[in-house]
């Protein structure tokens, strides 16, 4: 087995593996333009009928707006709650700082199927099932750890000399925070916001436990739809979702580099 940078065999192997990795995401593009009645590849004719069907589907549209509103609210709240928390954990010295950070990011370690069930049982007794408030709270449980982690990394690697200079020159601490610390944190904030938005917008397992006929999100609505009929309309919705995701990825890449946001 020759594994070397220059080996064409290695290049071929990696190309095949990349095709496998990306096949499901790429294939939905041609399928979304299918003119067929059922899911078939390659399609026998082409049309925009499934996009029309998608935009005529009232349940999907309503779920899309719910998801969008939900993701916006969750993103804003994650930042408002996450920035002060990250600041305290990174900048103040007190006992149990690491423990606290681990506790706050612990929800990420749990499988969503377990967390979803656990939240369902508790929210049922609080009357939070199938309500916007309940969905916001549940999504915050999983979005806040991401926000906290990214913001803490950004704060910890921030150059402190500007803050110190501002303080020495007599700026009030609060205005130092708002006029020096926060602007210098902007790339971390953008990355955290983008990730929180995606986490909330794509969340499906936990949400599945908490939604009902009264309120539903786009991923849950799509899940239900695929479970019953996997026709090309889902491909049209998938294409729009993928484009939205790509847009958000570009924002993160611009703001801080994908590698830094995900690998560390």
């Amino acid at each position, binding site marked *: 087995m020759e594994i070397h*940078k220059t080996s064409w065999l290695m290049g071929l192997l990696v190309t095949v593996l990349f095709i496998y990795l990306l096949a499901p995401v790429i294939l939905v593009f041609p399928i979304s333009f299918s003119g067929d009645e059922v899911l078939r590849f390659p399609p026998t004719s082409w049309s925009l009928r499934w996009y029309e069907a998608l935009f005529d589907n009232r349940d999907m549209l309503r779920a899309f707006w719910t998801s969008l509103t939900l993701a916006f609210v969750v993103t804003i709240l994650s930042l408002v709650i996450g920035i002060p928390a990250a600041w305290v954990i990174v*900048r103040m010295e007190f006992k149990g700082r690491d423990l606290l950070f681990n506790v706050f990011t612990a929800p990420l370690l749990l499988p969503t199927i377990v967390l979803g069930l656990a*939240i369902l049982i508790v929210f049922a007794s609080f009357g939070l099932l199938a309500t916007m408030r309940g969905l916001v709270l549940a999504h915050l449980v999983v979005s806040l750890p991401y926000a906290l982690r990214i913001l803490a990394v950004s704060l910890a690697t921030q150059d402190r000399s500007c803050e110190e200079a501002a*303080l020495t020159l007599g700026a*009030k601490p609060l205005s130092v*925070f708002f006029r020096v610390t926060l602007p210098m944190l902007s790339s971390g904030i953008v990355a955290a916001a983008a990730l929180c938005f995606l986490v909330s917008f*794509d969340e499906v397992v936990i949400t599945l436990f908490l939604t009902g006929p009264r309120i539903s999100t786009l991923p849950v609505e799509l899940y239900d739809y695929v479970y019953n009929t*996997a026709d090309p309309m889902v491909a049209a919705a998938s294409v729009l979702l993928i484009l939205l995701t790509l847009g958000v990825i570009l924002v993160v890449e611009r703001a801080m580099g994908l590698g830094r946001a995900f690998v560390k």
Partner: protein
Amino acid sequence: MTTAIALTRSRRRFSDHQVAIALLLPIALINVVGFMLPIFNLARFSFNRATTGGGIENVLTLENWTGLLRDPFYLELILNSIWISLGVTLCALVLSYPIALYLHRSSGTWRTFLTVLVISPLLTSAVVRTYGWIAILSDEGPVVGAIKSVGLTPPPLMFNINGVFIGLTEILMPYMILALMAGFGRLDPKVEEAARTLGATPWQCFRRVILPLTAPGIALGCLLCFVLAVSSFITPKLMGGGRVFLLATEIYDQAIVTLNWPLASTLSILVLIIFGAALVAYSAVLKRLD
């Protein structure tokens, strides 16, 4: 620290401590209400008794646990979940290793581009990717079509374990690749070169130099993939067509369809126990590697 001290000095009414508590209060509240309380409650529920019609009797009993171990359906379900997860993890490792190695050796814009390609499926909804696999593996899809055009009978790919296996492996690969790359930091190209100049064959070089150096990354990736496979829900549910029973799908069915919350809780705690066992195995492997 300077900012922290100064911030509190300017308002002498509050101490450092009080400011910290006030700023941490919202995140702590959400953590308690949305995480700690639910998990504690879940553990308690696994010792409660389910009554007919979805009721719950608040008694302390081991019935759920003993019932689980006596019922052959559940024993098979648990073993099935573990075996499939191990298989998926192994496949994901074999398929991800060359990609990770290639990425580790590339540089510049090309590397960034490929990294984005690896991460983008990760950020695409699991429902979308599973739907993509349904499209690929369905009877009217490209794979079945290709096999038929060669004149062979295609094996059943959808609504059984084959489809779930293929789809799940692909869905978990990005996690494996990222974990492997994180562990590849110790792999210095100079070490490989040294081995080759000293006369090692490519296979020897891989087996005796590259593999041992990348072992911690392999261990981390396997832990991550196994844990995600055991708890995966969307892919088995949508691609299994109600014929593939795994832990996560059973938790959902018991919670939503049968409304047996104590049993669903017991299965959930079981998933967490399997997680714990995987972690123990992982740290044992890491110790041996050192």
